[in-house]
């Protein structure tokens, strides 16, 4: 952010629904599409096709609660009632050489985030203990890097067993693009789950990242699975992608078959190219949470960044639209809801907290 600018950063919160090439279904068409999806997912127990998902994406706004209700039923049938709670910590913040247009930690953009070095082990342990104390079963160690260098690898391989053994938490890592050898060493070093998001559809990716390719991300995801770590592979909605591109991403995630999919909504960051983007509307967010569940019935579908500004007081609605996991507390550089509020929400919804893994 320029300190000499005369203008403050201005953001709009006007909802910006994804562009759609097709008109909405009429109510009778919507009911038929929902019945067909119910048959496929609950009776036949098969995945929906891209064409079926594209039809469901066109249900009118008044049918979104029905879409959400089906997604909740599918989640219960395929995954059960448990909700997985996770905390995340940025252990190396800012200074990233990549130019992901949504990210305040890229050195390509002038943002308020100051780069800081790898945290001390004691600081990471303290954060992990606090996360365990609020009932989490998963703790993700996140670094703003293109990929880990050897020094970072050594720090991670030292840190993971310490944090796991001291807290009893499952340890996830997010450290960017991996080589074959790095993926093997992290798996052997006790990393339970590795996060590497596709973020968006292959066809849209070059519009938001130019320093690496979607295929490079896919390669790392494949390595994670090859070496036996659980794959956490998320999406970021609201960057200007179309409805068709969201469907494209869903089918790409179906092919990849990750254990977990965190669903993020863009929280426009000052100083980034997407800093002035419109925030996703609440009803659109519920529609797409439900569609993610219907496309990926067995996955751990996690509430992640941007839910506070997108859904505001409708957090519980997401939990009954297909979500079965959440990031508790703060995010990497921004703040979230209080853990107590989220835990109370789960108690109110009678959703037990537990560690999850892939169903199929």
């Amino acid at each position, binding site marked *: 952010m320029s300190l000499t600018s005369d203008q*403050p950063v201005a953001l709009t919160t006007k909802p910006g629904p994804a562009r759609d090439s097709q008109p909405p279904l009429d109510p009778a068409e919507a009911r038929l599409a929902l019945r067909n999806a119910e048959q496929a997912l609950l009776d036949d127990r098969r995945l929906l096709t891209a064409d079926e998902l594209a039809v469901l994406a066109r249900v009118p706004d008044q049918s979104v609660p029905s879409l959400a209700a089906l997604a909740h039923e599918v989640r219960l049938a395929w995954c059960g009632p448990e909700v997985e709670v996770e905390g995340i910590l940025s252990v190396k913040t800012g200074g990233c050489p990549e130019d992901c247009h949504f990210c305040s930690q890229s050195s390509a953009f002038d943002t308020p985030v100051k780069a*800081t070095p790898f*945290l001390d082990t004691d600081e990471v342990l303290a954060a992990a203990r606090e996360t365990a104390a609020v009932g989490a079963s998963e703790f993700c160690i996140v670094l703003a890097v293109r990929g880990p260098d050897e020094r970072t690898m050594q720090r991670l391989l030292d840190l993971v067993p310490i944090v796991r053994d001291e807290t009893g938490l499952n340890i996830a890592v997010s450290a960017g693009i991996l080589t074959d050898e790095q993926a093997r060493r992290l798996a052997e070093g006790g990393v339970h789950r590795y996060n590497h998001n596709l973020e968006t559809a292959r066809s849209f990716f070059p519009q938001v990242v130019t320093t690496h390719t979607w295929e490079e991300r896919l390669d790392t995801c494949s390595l994670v699975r090859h070496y036996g770590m659980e794959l956490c592979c998320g999406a970021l909605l609201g960057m200007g992608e179309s409805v068709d591109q969201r469907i494209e991403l869903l089918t790409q995630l179906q092919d990849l078959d990750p254990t977990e999919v965190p669903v993020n909504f863009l929280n426009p960051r000052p100083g980034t190219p997407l800093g002035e983007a419109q925030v996703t509307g609440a009803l659109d967010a519920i529609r797409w949470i439900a569609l993610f569940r219907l496309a990926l019935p067995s996955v751990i579908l996690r509430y992640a960044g941007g839910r506070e*500004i997108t859904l505001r007081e409708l957090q519980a609605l997401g939990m009954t639209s297909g979500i079965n996991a959440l990031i508790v507390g703060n995010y990497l550089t921004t703040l979230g809801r209080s*853990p107590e509020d989220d835990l109370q929400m789960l108690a109110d919804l009678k959703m037990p907290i537990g560690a999850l893994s892939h169903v199929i």
Partner: protein
Amino acid sequence: MAASDPPPTHATPEHCVSCGRLASECPGCGRELDPPHFCATCGTRLAVLVKPTGWRGRCKVHGEVAASDR
């Protein structure tokens, strides 16, 4: 100051904690879910540690200047 008095605070911050400009030149650009990123006293960019259950901001001149346990 009596022993029971609260510690002194910056009643009128000199700098906006979200953009670092002089407070008199910023009409208010802070947002609810962002921690402070600049020192209210000198406008220096803070090293901010955000944890799941709290955050703190450290100024290289003034030390820890902002923190929350949530």
